[in-house]
């Protein structure tokens, strides 16, 4: 079958059945009493909570909303609204204090100050991005750090690997702390922790090892983001969440998934990832997506490099056994 923009369309009913069976099977075979899921106010966790309720009934789904001081305030609002719509039990725990006692903000800000000494965490905001528009911009994945004041760029500099590692090491504690809370609730209620990673995130390694990647089940890891949206619309996730632009919601200024990691709108990531995974002939891709060979190859090169450099995230740790 020739590749078209509709190649990613799914049959909602059968896909929903398949995921429900998967969730039921694992909860049953592990002899667990249900699911705990972290609700971020984003579309992936909204869809997961809907599917879990359909699979297990609302009493067996517990939502945890874990904001911190740098989270977008609407994240919590949307997450609560989604939980209320589903009528599931949920709890909101602000994890700021735990992150502070870990030194997350201090450790990160010390790195920032070593690059821009006047950084003031009261007045300034941080933005970390990759170069925009990979299809038209032949640049490597070099991260840029931007300091914003009142929403306007104040300072911009290249972020070297060593400094990036130090910043990400600190901010990854946010995702890992959420994991720890999820497991506390799951273990004390004899439940499984459900992850919310989708297919592009899985393949491109856009998750934190032992953080949002440290879960028991990943029911939508096989779905492209477009498919997540398609299912979420059909299954009536709240409008605010469906209309939101995907974001990691990790920095104290707004950074979208596209600027932070993927360098393309998610629809294009999905389509090109699909053609990359399925070896669709280049001519077909060019024609259907209106791209040149150079552009497609640029995207593929980025896919391959992210796939290879994150391979260890998808594998079991090496051992002598």
């Amino acid at each position: 079958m020739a590749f078209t923009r509709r190649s990613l369309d799914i049959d909602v009913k059968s896909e929903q059945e398949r995921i429900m069976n998967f969730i039921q099977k694992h909860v049953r075979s592990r002899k667990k009493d249900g699911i705990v899921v972290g609700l971020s106010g984003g579309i992936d966790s909204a869809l997961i909570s809907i599917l879990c309720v359909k699979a297990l009934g609302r009493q067996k789904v517990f939502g945890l909303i874990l904001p911190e001081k740098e989270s977008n305030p609407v994240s919590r609002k949307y997450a609560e609204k989604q939980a209320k719509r589903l009528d599931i039990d949920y709890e909101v725990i602000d994890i700021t204090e735990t992150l502070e006692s870990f030194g997350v903000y201090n450790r990160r800000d010390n790195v920032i100050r070593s690059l821009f000494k006047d950084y003031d965490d009261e007045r300034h905001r941080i933005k970390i991005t990759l170069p925009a528009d990979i299809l038209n911009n032949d640049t490597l994945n070099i991260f840029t750090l931007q300091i914003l004041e009142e929403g306007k760029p104040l300072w911009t500099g290249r972020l070297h690997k060593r400094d990036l590692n130090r910043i990400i090491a600190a901010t990854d504690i946010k995702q890992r702390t959420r994991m720890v809370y999820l497991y506390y609730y799951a273990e004390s209620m004899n439940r499984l922790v459900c992850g919310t990673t989708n297919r592009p995130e899985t393949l491109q390694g856009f998750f934190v090892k032992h953080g949002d990647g440290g879960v028991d089940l990943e029911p939508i890891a096989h779905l492209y983001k477009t498919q997540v949206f398609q299912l979420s619309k059909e299954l009536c996730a709240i409008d605010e969440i469906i209309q939101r632009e995907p974001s990691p919601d990790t920095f104290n200024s707004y950074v979208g998934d596209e600027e932070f990691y993927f360098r393309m709108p998610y629809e294009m990531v999905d389509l090109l990832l699909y053609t990359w995974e399925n070896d669709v002939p280049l001519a077909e891709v060019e024609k259907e997506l209106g791209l040149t060979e150079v552009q497609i190859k640029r995207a593929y090169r980025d896919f391959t490099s992210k796939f290879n450099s994150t391979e260890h995230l998808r594998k079991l740790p090496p051992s002598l056994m």
Partner: protein
Amino acid sequence: MESSDPEHSILLERPKEEIDRIQDWIRETVLNRMRKKGVVIGLSGGVDSSVCAALCVNSLGKERVLGLFMPEKDCKSETNDLGRLIASHLDITTITEDITPVLTSAGCYERRDDGIRMTIPEYGPDWMSKVVLPSILDSNRLSISNIVVRDPNGSDITKRMRTRSYLQVVAASNFKQRTRKMMEYYHGDRLNYAVVGTPNKLEYDLGFFVKNGDGAADIKPIGHLYKTQVYQIGELLGIPEKILSRPPTTDTYSLPQSQEEFYFSLPYDKMDIALHAYDNNYSEKKLGEILDVDEDTAGRIYLDIRNKKRMASFLHLPPQVPE
């Protein structure tokens, strides 16, 4: 253990060669395959982390090994003393991160104490506690846990825990292992170092670790060695005697708690033999003869191993994906 009898012995025949093999593997895995610059290892003062640290130092050089001390308020002072002993013995750089404030703000202690009060309502803030399993040699207890609490006057109360109470106490205590692992990953990610996991074969196969806690790591250099074998190579590696002679402890509860009473239900040397016998399909009768217990008891030991292996297999699974 009758180490002279080859059938019963699980000592390594060529321990020096095994040390070389592990050290080659660490070098190859960390530097070439994972492209990391070194390793981070949490030091508990126990034999497993001490042996792992020594293997890493031999294999990578001491300047590529960072030791972490991560005490919290329930730790015994021995943990700190022996941790520092191995670090100075190996002459490695160390960092101390007291995790008590993180645990307090996450509600670890409070949630645990609430869990204990589900069983013992009078449990107070200055009391101490631990969770224990009765010995498998005494009774058919299969995973019914007791809580032992000690009041400020030093008198103990022991009570059987209800499921909900047990689950909450263990879940809350697991904050400790997970917080430590997060701290190890923070330093590992910051320095581009791999994180070392220190489970031995008993712990690995029987699931005595916390998922995303001490069970998580980039490399597990002694995951294939019985505890007896860890001691065996520990001696050859020159691990200080004080560390080798310390009984294995969880150091998770405020009262001293051995691994045997919390999880394994047999002393480690017997558990090693039992696991080896199980994996090699020895009959219950034969296991009974080796351990000098009756056949019923041997049967209970096998049942216990079977249950634990089943649980461990889930803990080792990567997150499950449809199809």
